[in-house]
């Protein structure tokens, strides 16, 4: 179906301009760009906090910050990276790509789409305000475990409400995505013909709708325990601090796949394009993704092996968690089989995709190690866990976002990035990432707890290596910013299809840069 606009077609000239254009826009591309820029600025903020953490940990002893502030850095680094950087980055991709990939003029609810975005800055503002309240910022970890959260000052409440707003934004965004995918596809674009990226987002959106309200419930209970005398998490009143952990991780585990699954989607577009060969098993990829999503609801207590739950529960959660390796393996094998006997070239997106594959799998394997209960009892709350999740979230999700940005940038802005610099960005990131995080496995194995500003002497060497790696990795990201700005200002003009093997319809049916309203008239899908 074609589109009708609530204004005449010369909108590009008559619509609001300047800042008002972005405040009021209902266009999926503008909104997608805002999401991406917001995400990148949050990444810098969260990254700066990570650098504070790493700088303090360069040596044993307290040198730069006091312990309260250190804990706050850990807390807000985690919250900002997860909710402010990675999630919005992939929502940005969804906004840009879903309409273009399914042949729709825009998202199903353009106005609500804009609201989903504009809820993020107030949430970020609350998190930033929380740094400056009397009593100091909350130093409780991104997992917000009570009773420690009950002891905190006003910053805790600001943080809780920020989480509420982020949840609203995610739920609206997900409703929009589900509706768009289910109801806005061009005629002939059956579900099983959709590019895999759309599939991964459809599944992710379901996860979000199912778990964000649960998180909202959990933090609401925190709030009433803090201010209205309820006893959800207080044993004196029949509650249990561990109850919070159950509710939190019922959200939290699906959350990590909310981060990972869109990343899988991006990789599933990039690898076939540069292998010049279709994805090996399209339908098994769809089923594997759905299985991962369903399983993710059934494994939450693997984050709580040491709380002292009954052994039967531990066994169940161990088995269920191990099972996730099977569908994830199917994905990994599929990607490798797609590369097999292809005709590969290694432009920056492909480099990041291969880097993803390599490092995400390492992170997956360490996840499997953690899934084994008796081993996790040793490793829980140590730097091994920190290493695990940075492998899956930084080398996983973040690398995949880089791959996606380099891949689609020409389509978005109509210009090419500097390939040489892009490759440099990859190699710097790859090397420094491993320097920063590989050694953390050893720290964790040897027993270094996480969330500490100071440590005993035997951990010194690896911490120094890690800090050096972290600073290198951080600086490499400034190079990324430079590459993007350079491409926008003076990049070479991009052809309609700069990647020979890219075959989804945003490449084959749309000019470059993509027109403001993607498909005014629905394309004909064979």
């Amino acid at each position, binding site marked *: 179906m074609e589109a009708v606009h609530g204004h005449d077609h010369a909108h590009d000239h008559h619509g609001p301009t300047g800042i008002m254009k972005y405040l009021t826009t209902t266009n999926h591309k503008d909104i997608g760009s805002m999401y991406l820029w917001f995400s990148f600025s949050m990444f810098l903020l969260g990254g700066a906090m990570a650098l504070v953490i790493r700088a303090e940990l360069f040596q044993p*002893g*307290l040198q730069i910050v006091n*312990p309260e502030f250190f*804990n706050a850095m850990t807390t807000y680094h985690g919250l900002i990276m997860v909710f402010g950087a990675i999630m919005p980055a992939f929502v940005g991709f969804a906004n840009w790509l879903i309409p273009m990939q399914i042949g729709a003029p825009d998202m199903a609810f353009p106005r609500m789409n804009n609201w989903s975005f504009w809820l993020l800055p107030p949430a970020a503002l609350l998190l930033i305000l929380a740094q400056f309240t009397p009593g100091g910022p909350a130093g409780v970890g991104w997992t917000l*475990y009570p*009773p420690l959260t009950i*002891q905190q000052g006003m910053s805790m409440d600001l943080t809780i409400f920020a989480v509420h707003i982020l949840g609203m934004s995610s739920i609206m965004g997900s409703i929009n995505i589900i509706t768009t995918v289910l109801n806005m596809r061009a005629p002939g674009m059956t579900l099983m013909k959709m590019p895999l990226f759309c599939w991964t987002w459809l599944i992710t959106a379901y996860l979000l709708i199912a778990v964000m309200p649960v998180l909202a419930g959990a933090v609401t209970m925190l709030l009433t325990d803090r201010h209205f005398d309820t006893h959800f998490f207080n*044993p*004196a009143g029949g509650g*249990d*601090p561990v109850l919070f952990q159950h509710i939190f991780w019922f959200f939290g585990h699906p959350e990590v796949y909310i981060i990972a699954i869109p990343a899988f989607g991006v990789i599933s577009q990039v690898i076939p394009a540069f*292998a*010049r*060969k*279709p994805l090996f*098993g399209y339908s098994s990829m769809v089923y594997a993704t759905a299985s991962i999503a369903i399983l993710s609801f059934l494994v939450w207590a693997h984050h709580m092996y*040491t*709380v*002292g739950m009954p*052994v039967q529960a*531990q066994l169940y959660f*161990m088995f269920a968690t*191990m099972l996730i*390796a*099977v569908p994830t*393996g*199917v994905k990994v094998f599929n990607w*490798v089989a797609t*590369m*097999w*006997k*292809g*005709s*590969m*070239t290694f432009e920056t997106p492909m480099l990041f995709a*291969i880097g993803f*594959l390599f490092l995400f*799998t*390492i992170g997956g*394997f360490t996840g*499997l*190690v953690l899934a*084994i209960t*008796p*081993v996790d*009892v*040793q490793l829980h*709350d*140590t730097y091994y866990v920190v290493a695990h999740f940075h492998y899956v979230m930084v080398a996983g999700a973040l690398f995949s976002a880089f791959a996606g940005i380099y891949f689609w940038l020409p389509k978005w802005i109509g210009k090419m990035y500097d390939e040489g610099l892009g490759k440099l960005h990859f190699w710097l990131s790859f090397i420094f990432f491993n320097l920063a995080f590989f050694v953390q496995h*050893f720290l964790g*194995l*040897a*027993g270094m*707890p*996480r969330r*500490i500003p*100071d*440590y*005993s002497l035997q951990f010194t*060497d690896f911490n120094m290596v890690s800090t050096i790696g972290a600073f290198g990795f951080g600086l490499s990201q400034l190079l990324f910013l430079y590459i993007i700005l350079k491409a926008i200002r003076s990049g070479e003009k991009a052809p309609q299809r700069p990647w020979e093997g890219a075959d989804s319809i945003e490449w084959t049916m749309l000019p470059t840069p993509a027109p403001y309203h993607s498909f005014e008239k629905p394309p004909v899908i064979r």
Partner: protein
Amino acid sequence: MITRTAHTLLALALSSWAGLAFGEMRFNLQDQKTALGHAVYDLHNAIVVICLIIFIVVFGLMLYSIWKHRKSVGHQAAHFHENTTVEVLWTVIPFLILLGMAYPATKTLLAQRDTSSPDLTVKVTGYQWKWQYEYLDENISFYSTLATPRAQIENVETKTENYLLEVDNEMVVPVGKKVRVLLTAGDVIHAWYVPALAVKQDSIPGFVRDTWFRAEEPGVYRGQCAELCGKEHAYMPVVVRVVSDEDYAKWVTERKAGQGTPVAAAVPATATDAAPAEAAPAPGVAAVADGKAVYDQACLMCHAAGVAGAPKVGDKAAWAPRSAKGLDVLYTHAIGGFNMMPPRGGNTALSDEQVKAAVDHMLAQSR
């Protein structure tokens, strides 16, 4: 056997990386000192080896493909896709591998959770930021706090060997005996973690949870709190001293003699043997009364409301780390001044004894 292979493979994999040649670096779990710990260690190695093999196979194929199937060497893309046999295989084989892992994992887990028939039961309570040990059968109870001086933490003095892993009162247990540890907490969640004994158990306020260990050889085993519990989370170590049966018996007698208070009444303020600060009221009741007068007159104006960041009297959280520095340090700081804290609270007429009495009073009120 698998352990041996594991070691070799790990060593190989890591030595290549460790070309940087640092001092003594550890690439694996700490050396285990319990039978269960050995089981965990072997289990971990076995899983790592299996993962390593899968990794090498999968990425060997990928690298081969990257090398051979490049466009730049003129490789033409084949156009095959969807092959049910392959897909079934790569679903079933990993599943079988996982089953193989699940079996030893289950066995180890069941052993780990079997806390039945202990030789000795110790109740451990986590507080911000200290541990309380209560030997339920012996009527022994004491607190254990960080012994590392503040000056080392603040980089004023050089750090000594057991930096952050030393306490004033160690937990002492006999070698070869099954020790059951009951964990609970007084304020927030902590976790009692000793790597070499393969124990980690959260201490949850209001609930008692348990774990156990049976140490194979005498020695001192060090660990720390493993659950974020506030600002001094990094500063609440766990130290377990494993001794022979005779030494243990001797320790118990000495403890009891020095203590003389039944556990029931031993809640917070007992224990002459607790941290020096814990023993503060020692100067005598009179001093305490006197201290209150001095406090009211000279110190209250700041320490009641927390003026200029002064630790509030009654604020346990603020005082615990300070008393951890030792009574003498606090005396010196109160008399000689410390950051924003003026010498003698700004009242030069006070004698050293009076200031000390005031400090005693403040500590007694803040525990």
